[in-house]
């Protein structure tokens, strides 16, 4: 596939690998940023239609230039650092939110060949990087020197730590079913002659639900957005942020949404595999599945009221964690019998 690159490879010698990897990173990050921009538009449009409104339609045809206008507006704004704030951490916090969200993409396979780093411990890496995202929020809340921001960050930290456990157990069942930590191998494990009946969302259905809902909670999206809670603590952890620093939080949140959608598709919905045996597999299937999962995120936001904080904790600790613990045992026993068909 890449024969035409060989002369360049020879010319650059040992510098080839870093340059090639950097190129791959750019090829992933730039479209991702574009996707984030247009996801914001899609969100406003979809929620608008669900609420029988039109949504943004002034900037460009069909509102298509709206994300660019928003981005430009945020770029031009002044970044205000509150008095008494810890300046260094205040600026570092948004970066700390965005970076883990981008770092995970290194192990995400788009199809059978397209992946930056085909590492064996991919699933563990995903979990570790996902758990780092909370630092940005905590530090932002603390460094702002503001009560609302601090409350938001405390809530968010407690929420993320709680839902991470259920999320981890959901991934353990995937790991048991596929017997691999490599994300590419997890997709290959769902390959079979029956199309979508071979995917893991059938034997692991409770875990599929738990993972996706925990994913919504981890990304602080409605109905789990108590970290922001506009109606109670104004905007939570990012209340003091403006301009590009605020935009970075925004980018991080949407990049995380896209990431959770990709991971859900890879681990439960067969990744790039075709749902019916007579159609070829391909990257388009992956994008189609991601689009469906992303639509669920938007649908949730338009439909559900925000959880009360105690309900949120109850759902995480008293419902999801017991269910996932039981399902780990169920899958373990099931796999020892001859009824395990996956």
């Amino acid at each position: 596939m890449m024969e035409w690159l060989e002369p360049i490879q020879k010319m650059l010698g040992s510098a080839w690998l870093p340059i090639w990897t950097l190129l791959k990173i750019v090829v992933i990050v730039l479209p991702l940023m574009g996707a984030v921009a247009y996801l914001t538009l899609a969100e406003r449009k979809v929620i608008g239609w669900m609420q029988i409104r039109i949504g943004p339609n002034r900037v460009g045809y069909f509102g298509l230039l709206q994300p660019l206008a928003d981005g430009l507006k945020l770029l031009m704004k002044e970044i205000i650092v509150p008095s008494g704030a810890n300046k260094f951490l205040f600026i570092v916090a948004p970066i700390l939110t965005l970076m883990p969200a981008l770092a995970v993409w290194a192990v995400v396979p788009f199809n059978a060949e397209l992946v930056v780093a085909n590492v064996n411990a991919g699933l563990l890496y995903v979990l570790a990087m996902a758990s780092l995202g909370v630092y940005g929020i905590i530090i932002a809340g603390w460094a702002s020197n503001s009560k609302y921001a601090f409350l938001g960050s405390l809530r968010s930290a407690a929420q993320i730590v709680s839902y991470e456990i259920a999320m981890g157990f959901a991934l353990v069942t995937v790991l048991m079913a596929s017997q691999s930590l490599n994300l590419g191998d997890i997709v290959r494990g769902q390959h079979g002659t029956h199309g979508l009946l071979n995917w893991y969302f059938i034997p692991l259905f409770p875990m599929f639900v738990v993972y996706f809902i925990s994913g919504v909670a981890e990304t602080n999206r409605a109905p789990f957005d108590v970290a922001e809670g506009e109606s109670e603590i104004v905007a939570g952890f990012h209340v003091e942020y403006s301009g590009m620093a605020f935009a970075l939080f925004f980018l991080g949140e949407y990049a995380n949404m896209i990431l959770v959608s990709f991971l859900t598709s890879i681990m439960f919905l067969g990744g790039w595999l075709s749902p019916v045996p007579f159609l070829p597999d391909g990257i388009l299937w992956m994008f189609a599945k991601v689009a469906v999962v992303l639509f669920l995120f938007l649908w949730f936001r338009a439909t559900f009221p925000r959880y009360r904080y105690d309900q949120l904790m109850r759902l995480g600790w008293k419902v999801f964690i017991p269910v996932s613990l039981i399902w780990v045992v169920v899958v373990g026993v099931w796999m020892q019998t001859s009824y395990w068909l996956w």
Partner: protein
Amino acid sequence: MSFFDAVFYLFAILTTLAATGVIIARNPVHAALFLVLAFCSAAGIWMLLEAEFLAITLVLVYVGAVMVLFLFVVMMLDINLVKLKEGFWRWFPFGAVIAGLMVFEMVWVLGSRQISESSRAVVHAANYSNTKELGKLIYTQYVYPFELAAVVLLVAMVAAIALTLRRRSGVKSQNVSEQVKVKKADRLRIVKMHSESRAEGK
């Protein structure tokens, strides 16, 4: 110096600097963040030794969970640094002797030719999976110690919860199952009434 060595020294210097930062940082939150950096760079060194399971678990457990809760607590505490630093110079010689002793021990053990020759990192084949090998060992050869350790941890956890559990009277809390079970009939009473007729006669 090869690329490998350069990466090693980078991580090693970062780890040492971060560890020093933990001690000398004036602000406890900064100290906790320095500790996070130290963990991350230590994970990098483990990764160089192809111990990817340990490296990622270090980040996942210590950075992702333990330090988050630690930061959580440190941020809410009102720590008086002046009081903490009291008596620093009085205890300094004592600490310095212990530190010197530890450095001497490490140099003695790690610097001896026998150990440094025999304990080189093993180079593995490309398809070697550290996670798989560790799992195999833990669940076959070391299964009893491993399960025992797990039970000890469980007991510790239960004990910690039991110690802090206080039943206070007069606490107001939501009974969720009652809330869910509520029917329309419990809250709402529909009263049939005749419509008022216009006052007749009188």
